[in-house]
């Protein structure tokens, strides 16, 4: 019996001269939601694709739901659901037809297909739109359909690749509620995202990736405490003033990061003599400190 839904050891994947994933360890314990955080190009999508054997690693070991990949990938895929980043619904088909096709692809037994489709429609709150063609749906509805399509066979593991990218804030909240519901039902989830708030709200643990490597692993709040301290000072001002503040803070050994029109000072233990306002630290601070990259 497998000890974790996903267990990846020292995975390496190269594309020519580029090493997309460079010795990554990743664990998703049963029943947990794990976030894979990183900017574009960090290797998140390559990692996700390796879990369905659409990318074959050059090195390392990979087990999904107790099946060794890539050899036994088809068995693993039969028991997991995958929500891709790119919408690949059949747009000329209705909502219900899309679900019917995937009930077949996911091998839902004939006598359970109807029930599975009804359940999927209910989960995604698309009952009233079952006969609508996909190209008549809103962006949020399409995303809900994409997610519920992956749940037809009641998978034990769900892979979500950037589940709310490109959605309006209120639509995003709806998707979060849906994912949170699945998590409370005990579905193991691996979610790649570059929305910090999404990871903070939904994930039990996060793995922060940069250049194909894991630079930090842990619970969101523990990571924030450890790397960013309890609070940050945020100083606003014209660019010249911000440069001055940065130099000053760095001279005192504090760390800084630019956030648009302000400079955030971390690990200053509440010293406010540079001016500015105190605020609670977040995962974004951790991310920028560790990777040196802004995330959005």
């Amino acid at each position, binding site marked *: 019996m497998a000890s974790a839904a996903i267990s990846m050891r020292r995975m390496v994947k190269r594309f020519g001269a580029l090493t997309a994933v460079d010795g990554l360890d990743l664990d998703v314990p049963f029943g947990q939601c794990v976030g894979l955080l990183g900017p574009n190009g960090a290797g998140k999508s390559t990692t996700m694709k390796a879990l369905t054997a659409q990318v074959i690693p050059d090195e390392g070991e990979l087990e999904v739901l*107790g099946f060794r990949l890539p050899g036994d990938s088809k068995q693993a895929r039969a028991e997991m659901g995958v929500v*891709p980043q790119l919408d690949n619904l059949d747009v000329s088909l209705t909502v219900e037809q899309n679900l019917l096709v995937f009930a077949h*692809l996911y091998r839902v037994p004939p006598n359970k297909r109807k029930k599975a489709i009804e359940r999927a429609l209910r989960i995604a709150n698309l009952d009233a739109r079952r006969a609508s063609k996909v190209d008549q749906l809103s962006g949020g509805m399409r995303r809900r359909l994409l997610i519920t399509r992956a749940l037809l066979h009641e998978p034990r593991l769900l892979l979500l690749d950037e589940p709310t990218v490109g959605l309006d804030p209120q639509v995003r909240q709806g998707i979060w509620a849906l994912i949170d519901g699945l998590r409370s039902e005990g579905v193991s989830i691996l979610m790649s995202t570059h929305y910090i708030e999404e990871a903070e709200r939904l994930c039990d643990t996060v793995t922060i990736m940069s250049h194909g490597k894991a630079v930090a692993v842990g619970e969101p709040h523990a990571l924030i405490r450890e790397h960013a301290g309890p609070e940050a000072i945020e100083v606003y001002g014209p660019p010249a003033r911000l440069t001055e503040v940065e130099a000053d803070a760095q001279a005192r050994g504090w760390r800084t990061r630019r956030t648009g029109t302000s400079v955030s000072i971390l690990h200053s233990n509440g010293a406010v003599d540079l001016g500015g306002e105190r605020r609670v630290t977040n995962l974004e601070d951790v991310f920028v400190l560790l990777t040196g990259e802004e995330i959005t």
Partner: protein
Amino acid sequence: MAATRRLHRLERAALQGVMVREVVNFSSFWRSSTFSSTVDPTIYLLAFGFGFGSLVSTVAGYDYIDFVGTGIVATTVLFSGAFPAMYSTFVKYEFQHTYDAILAAPVDTEELVTAEALWIATRTGVYGCVPMLVAVVFGLTPSWGMLLVPEIAALAGFGWASFGIFIAAKAKAIESFSYWQSGLLTPMFLVAGTFFPLEDLPTWAQVLGNLNPLFHCVELVRHAVFGFEGWEDVGHLAFLIAFALASWRLAIRFMERRLIL
């Protein structure tokens, strides 16, 4: 907890899943697909039948309508097998990302390609008969052997569908299809013994013709309708089977290269 059920290669459930997707989608575009697959060959049939047929009455021992009305089956097989396979495969992986979704389900590339080719072959088996039935209206003599034509068309169709998938898997852009179409497929469909016999051509052209799967399809259909010629037809059948198998494996191999990184 860990499932003990081993999954195998080429499982029925996986093939069925992919084909269900095709059948459901077909319900929304069958009109245009049927039109393009059958009308083109019918136009060739009528153009050659009336145009050329007014100049010659018999060709290679056949009435011209009998000659061209049976040969046209192979043209339909090419038009409804290779071309849809090329375009739909390319669109599905490049623009619609359909294959990403399918390969995330318990379906392997081998099953995906096989199911797509089988479905196109099924359509080809039906479409292949349409211009022949039109030819019956214009004087082609019906025979019991015509009942074998859908099977021959489906076998050849499987080969051409696979070949089309192979072309799509190799293509970097949809524009590169023109090279295959103008450079290979068009000459093949003209020099297949459909509209004029190969026997009177120079030796080199006859040799090339014998390497053309469409020629073997033309001959086999003609003989099915007007009487088999023994071992010669076993040879035609063997060639079509070999073409289907080779194209099928080639399509799988190149699609794997394309879809699995």
